[in-house]
């Protein structure tokens, strides 16, 4: 299963759900975002039983990106109970994304 594309409506719906939500804020012109995408889809598949994994195109959802104070791409934000509990900008490896998820959920 690959990461779900989210618009404002789906973002709001999924954040209200029981499972934590990981969101990749990205843009089509952002080179580093493309580099993240294959390992990110792998993470979506590996964590599908306990985590919602999605992505938001900040060009299409500019207001959402602004409201979430995204200013570097890609930024991954982890939400729990509707609130952002951690974020990581331009992670260098799949392992770093994994570590970010584990550490943030453990807090």
């Amino acid at each position, binding site marked *: 299963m690959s990461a779900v594309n989210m618009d404002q409506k789906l973002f709001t719906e999924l954040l209200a759900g029981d499972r934590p939500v990981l969101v990749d804020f990205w843009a089509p012109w952002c*080179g*580093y975002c493309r580099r*993240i995408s294959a*390992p990110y889809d792998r993470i979506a598949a590996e964590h599908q039983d306990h985590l919602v994994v999605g992505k938001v195109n900040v060009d299409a959802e500019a207001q959402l990106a602004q409201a979430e104070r995204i*200013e*570097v791409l890609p930024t991954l934000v982890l939400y729990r109970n509707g609130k952002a509990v951690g974020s990581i900008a331009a992670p*260098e*490896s*799949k*392992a770093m994304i994994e570590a970010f998820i584990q550490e943030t959920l453990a807090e």
Partner: protein
Amino acid sequence: MTHGHIYDMIIVGGGPGGYTAALYAARAGLDTLVLEKLSAGGQMALTQQIDNYPGFEDSVDGFTLAEKMQAQAERFGARTEYAQVERLDLTASPKVLETSEGTFLGKTVVLATGADPRKLGVDHEEALVGRGVAYCAACDGMFYRGKTVVVVGGGNSAAADALLLSRIAKKVILVHRRDALRATKIYHEPLKQAENLEFRWNSAITGLLYGDRLTGVQLKNLNSGEVFNLDCDGLFISVGRTPATELVRGQLELDPGGYILAGETTETSIPGVFAVGDVRTKRLRQVVTAVSDGAVAVHMAEEYLAGGT
């Protein structure tokens, strides 16, 4: 978790050098694994336009070229794991690679770990990354539309970043320690013609000014010693690259710049270990020289494997 399987060749890093080695190795019938921490391409994956790689007369973007190199190597049987290598034992037999995805064993190892942007080394630099401090104009430049940015550096990448940003930002200030650029001549004229670009020669950034995010930099004139503040919204650091050789420090011989000592044969100081691409000591770091290294490394590895050691 140890994967008991012993590969003929394990390649660390999936840039152009790494995937060319994978292509040649797989075609030579070697059981080949690529360990890549993120995605194919390395630094090349962030290059929007490559005009000096033969065969693409209309240019190609680095990410696409990387995907093609990966697909080509995998077509002949090379495998890829998205794994971060944490420790290496290069003198063991077989060679041992401990990673985020378990331990892998290989008869030969090709190091294709490349190089990363060098930090400026001023206080709070890391904390302000993403809040005004950036290393990649092609990636983050769009956030500075209509704003004032400082670019620090004097080489080709600083010149290219300053030019790119001059088309986006309101004003670009290029800060360099010397009184002239080291950048290739082709950059000089376009830089001079960019009306919103100004130079601060003989200057160094000695501090960062910030609230929630970067608000300016502290500049020191290296001739007069005078220190003053310069307001800006962004700082793009473009001061060269550092080879990714932390993993092999103490095991392999490195040159004073930290690059792996290996000649045109790509052989390192340990038999069965080869260094290709930007991580190797060399005069010209380009995609074409990296792919060339990859092919040579496999040739040498085949000789090594045939020797039975």
